[in-house]
């Protein structure tokens, strides 16, 4: 019996190749898309969930009121971790982390590598296993070093790294005391090595100041301590140790680190979980659409198989065995589609990974993957096959065999419903895609307030700071650059903010937070900013400019100066500084947010970055070559590294770009799968109505008459879908755009565009079949009767 089913199923699929092709490819594409999304979701959900201690792991957050709002941030004082471990019984272990970036030297090999300073507890709190070395002791001595496997290969090739010595920044030697298994693709941590905190302390990088929030503090609670109990204990730790009387501390649990990391007014309002849900819904719908195709095509075709059902019943088939037969066929199809889907996923994963910036892979070795895959196929086969199976098996043999069974219209009501569902979803996706792209273009076209092209920056590593004056003058004299300035942070990042400024007439009850930026001179010229009042900082002409300040317009507005130039502002160290100029607002951080008030401090501050405007008369390659010569000359040990400001700025759109690209990809796929189904349906309808068409043609109908007759019904469905889709898309986008203070308005043309586009594509798909049917010689089908 079973063999017979398979044989007949196979033969049926083979005999109707185009049907099989349409059905399988639609299902395979649907499954592959859903699988890609599910891999992505699985990866997102598994972030840092592999730590054995995950239920007890927390990261410390601060919270305090500024500008009338409760803000939360997860940089903490360095002293916090130590204090929590010593004096708070709910805390078992803590580890601080802060970034480090050192030049590693082994023999004549130099490598610039990013890593962390951390406490020894890091290795025991988290499940980052050491392949070599003892996690309890690997970071306990000052000059010890734990490296990842990948870094070990970079540094030592295939030699055993344990006990080897590495020179750091040509000042200190470190001994490798541990080799860590490479970090998995689902952790928030990103480092190539770990260095002991004790080294930071030795070199003066540690402090006990409660007002300096600069490191992250990870906390392992004692077993059986709830989040609530822990929070109750630690909430006042900052208040009771310092004069920061309104800073509270709370713990953010590991289960929420990745997905629920967005705070608003002190409460978690989501984060990545939003995208996870969104794409989960998309995956579900794409799969649903593929299944709908399958059902539609199977039932449409099944009407042609009605006779087979009738005969089988006459010769003794029970309803059950017919159901089994048709389910078997659809499961077989789903199975084939599943195999093709795996191939599609495997082939498209590299590009998908690039798009999503992940390292996803198909876990071929995991039994769970195969079990999940198999149930996925069975489920799809059952869902897709159930309607045709029950529909077909309930045919009454008498009516079928007598020919009273009408198969004239491929568009019965349930099928119409399914087509409308498909196209509604497709149209919603198209509208959303267009609006997301609009929003991105809108933000990208926003006036930056400075000129980002030809602007390059280099971090001040090694001896750059020491030799800055010479580097600056040689960059210009070599012709590489036309202007150079030293700043505290890259132009695309806000590294520092402070509410410690004071001026005459300030309302002392309010904390006003300013972005803080430092520049030594030629800042306005190099960046191409617009001066609104006063002048740039210029210490050569004005020796007092070492404590000069520039404000942006937002700062002037919030401070309330009528004549800002010449006013005195006291900085955090209570030093009076003079405002020498005001610049037009420029975007430092998010292009979607209003520009924050900003203070640019003069030469008497700290610096990390050199910005230089390349010489427009030379080619970029030429300029970079000249610049490299200069940096090599004055900072010979370090490789020359540079960043283009316009490229860095473009990265601000990465997230939205990703969502946008994924949305267009899936919108395209949805339309494609839907049209595949429409194509199949139209083919059946044309086939079923061939006789009617022939008779009409003999009676004098033209080809366009007939094409119109056949396409009209489908067109109506697409239009209904459009009417349903528009408000759904509008509401979804309205909600999405609301999260961007700087956003486009939703315009009517987007809807019209999506509607017309869908109609054209659908009409094209259907009329291919309609025209084909209308062109057929009527004699042919009439003779076949």
């Amino acid at each position, binding site marked *: *019996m079973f063999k*017979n089913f398979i044989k*007949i199923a196979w*033969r*049926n699929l083979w*005999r109707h190749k185009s049907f099989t092709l349409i059905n399988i490819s639609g299902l395979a594409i649907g499954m592959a898309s859903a699988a890609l999304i599910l891999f992505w979701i699985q990866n997102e959900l598994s972030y840092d969930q592999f730590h054995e201690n995950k239920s007890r792991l927390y990261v410390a957050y601060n919270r305090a009121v500024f500008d009338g709002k409760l803000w939360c941030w997860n940089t903490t004082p360095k002293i916090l971790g130590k204090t929590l471990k010593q004096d708070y019984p709910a805390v078992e272990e803590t580890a601080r982390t802060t970034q480090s970036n050192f030049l590693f030297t082994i023999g004549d090999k130099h490598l610039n590598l990013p890593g962390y300073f951390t406490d020894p507890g890091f290795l025991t709190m988290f499940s980052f296993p050491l392949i070599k070395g003892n996690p309890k002791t690997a970071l306990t001595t000052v000059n010890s070093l734990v490296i990842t496997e990948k870094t070990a290969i970079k540094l030592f090739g295939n030699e055993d790294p344990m006990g080897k010595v590495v020179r750091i920044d040509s000042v200190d030697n470190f001994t490798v005391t541990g080799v860590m298994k490479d970090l998995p693709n689902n952790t928030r941590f990103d480092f190539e090595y770990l260095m002991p905190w004790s080294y930071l302390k030795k070199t003066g990088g540690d402090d006990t100041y409660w007002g300096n929030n600069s490191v992250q503090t990870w906390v392992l609670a004692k077993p059986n301590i709830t989040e609530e109990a822990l929070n109750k204990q630690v909430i006042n730790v900052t208040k009771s140790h310092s004069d920061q009387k309104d800073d509270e501390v709370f713990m953010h649990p590991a289960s929420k680190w990745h997905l629920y990391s967005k705070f608003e007014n002190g409460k978690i309002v989501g984060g990545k979980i939003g995208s996870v849900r969104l794409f989960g819904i998309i995956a579900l719908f794409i799969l649903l659409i593929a299944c709908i195709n399958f059902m539609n095509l199977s039932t449409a075709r099944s009407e042609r198989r009605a*006779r*087979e059902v*009738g*005969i*089988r*019943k*006459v*010769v*003794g*088939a*029970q*309803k059950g*065995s017919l159901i089994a037969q048709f389910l078997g066929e659809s499961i077989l199809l789903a199975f084939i589609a599943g195999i093709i889907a795996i191939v599609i996923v495997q082939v498209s994963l590299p590009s998908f990974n690039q798009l999503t910036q992940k390292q996803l892979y198909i876990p071929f070795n995991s039994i769970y993957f195969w079990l999940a895959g198999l149930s996925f196929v069975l489920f799809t086969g059952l869902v897709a096959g159930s309607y045709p199976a029950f529909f077909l098996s309930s045919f*009454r*043999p*008498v009516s079928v*065999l*007598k020919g009273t069974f009408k198969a004239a219209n491929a568009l019965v009501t349930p099928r119409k419903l399914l087509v409308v569902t498909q196209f509604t979803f497709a149209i919603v996706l198209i509208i959303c895609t267009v609006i997301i792209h609009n929003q991105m273009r809108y933000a990208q076209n926003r006036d930056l307030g400075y000129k980002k092209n030809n602007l390059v920056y280099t971090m001040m590593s090694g001896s750059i700071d020491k030799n800055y004056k010479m580097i600056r003058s040689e960059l210009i004299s070599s012709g590489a650059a036309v202007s150079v300035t030293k700043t505290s942070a890259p132009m695309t990042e806000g590294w520092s903010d402070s509410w410690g400024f004071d001026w005459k007439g300030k309302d002392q009850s309010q904390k006003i937070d300013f972005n803080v930026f430092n520049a030594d001179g030629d800042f306005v010229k190099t960046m191409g900013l617009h001066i609104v009042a006063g002048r740039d900082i210029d210490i050569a002409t004005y020796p007092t400019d070492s404590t000069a300040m520039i404000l942006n317009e937002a700062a002037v507005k919030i401070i309330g100066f009528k004549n800002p130039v010449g006013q005195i502002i006291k900085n955090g160290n209570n030093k009076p500084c003079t405002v020498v100029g005001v610049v037009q607002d420029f975007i430092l951080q998010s292009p979607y947010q209003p520009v924050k008030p900003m203070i640019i401090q003069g030469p008497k501050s700290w610096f990390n970055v050199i910005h230089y405007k390349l010489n427009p008369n030379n080619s970029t390659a030429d300029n970079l070559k000249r610049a490299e010569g200069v940096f090599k000359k004055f900072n010979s040990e370090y490789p020359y590294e540079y960043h283009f400001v316009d490229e860095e700025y473009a990265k601000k759109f990465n997230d939205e770009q990703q969502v946008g690209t994924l949305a267009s990809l899936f919108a395209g796929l949805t339309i494609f799968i839907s049209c595949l189904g429409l194509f199949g349906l139209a083919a059946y309808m044309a086939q079923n109505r061939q006789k009617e068409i022939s008779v009409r043609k003999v009676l004098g109908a033209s080809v366009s008459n007939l094409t119109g007759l056949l396409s009209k019904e489908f067109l109506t469905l697409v239009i209904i879908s459009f009417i349903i889709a528009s408000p759904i898309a509008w509401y979804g986008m309205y909600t999405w755009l609301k999260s961007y203070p700087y956003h486009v308005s939703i315009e009517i043309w987007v809807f019209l565009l999506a509607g017309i586009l869908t109609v054209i594509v659908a009409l094209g798909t259907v009329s291919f079949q309609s025209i084909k049917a209308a062109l057929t010689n009527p004699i042919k089908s009439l003779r076949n009767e």
Partner: protein
Amino acid sequence: MIKITNLEKFYRTEEVETIALNKLSIEIATGEFVAIMGPSGCGKSTLLNILGMLDDPDEGSYIFNEIEVAHFTERKRADLRKHNIGFVFQSFNLIDELTVFENVELPLIYTGVPASERVKRVEEVLDKMQIMHRRNHYPQQLSGGQQQRVAIARAVVNKPKLILADEPTGNLDSTNGNDVMELLTDLNEQGTTIIMVTHSEHDARYSHRIIRLLDGQAVVENIMV
């Protein structure tokens, strides 16, 4: 073998109600060869479908082999049917996707005959119908007469006690038609009861008895000599 009493069947559409069978009573004994005749639309096919348990009557009683089957469930009817009744249609009704052999094998599969036994029985019947050489062909590759022989082979492979034939020669020329009638006569002589609907007086002459229907009622019964 068959006894129907006051059998009624209506067809209702939105506008009209058709009485296809009107208080029809007929009795047919085991081993008989009966022809049913009458003008188009008088209810012959309807009667045959009810006798074959493909359809159920609205009123009246239908006793098959001493069992009242008029109100059997679909499942029970299918069970009874597959062991006792074979069908032959005017339009052959073979499954296009199956070969000759597989078409004939189908009823055996549904009655759960083991595979080795099936091969034996199918070959035996195909031999008897003289289409053994076509066993691996598909229906479209056969002539009408050959297709009808396959259909008869399929009807008898399960050794049914009753064969119902609805205009079995309707789509055939006279030579092929006569062949089919010979086959049915042979089967009848081996003990199978046969009920056949036909428009052809010539074919009707092969039977023992003719039941003539008019407007769903039996008007005459001719006993053939």
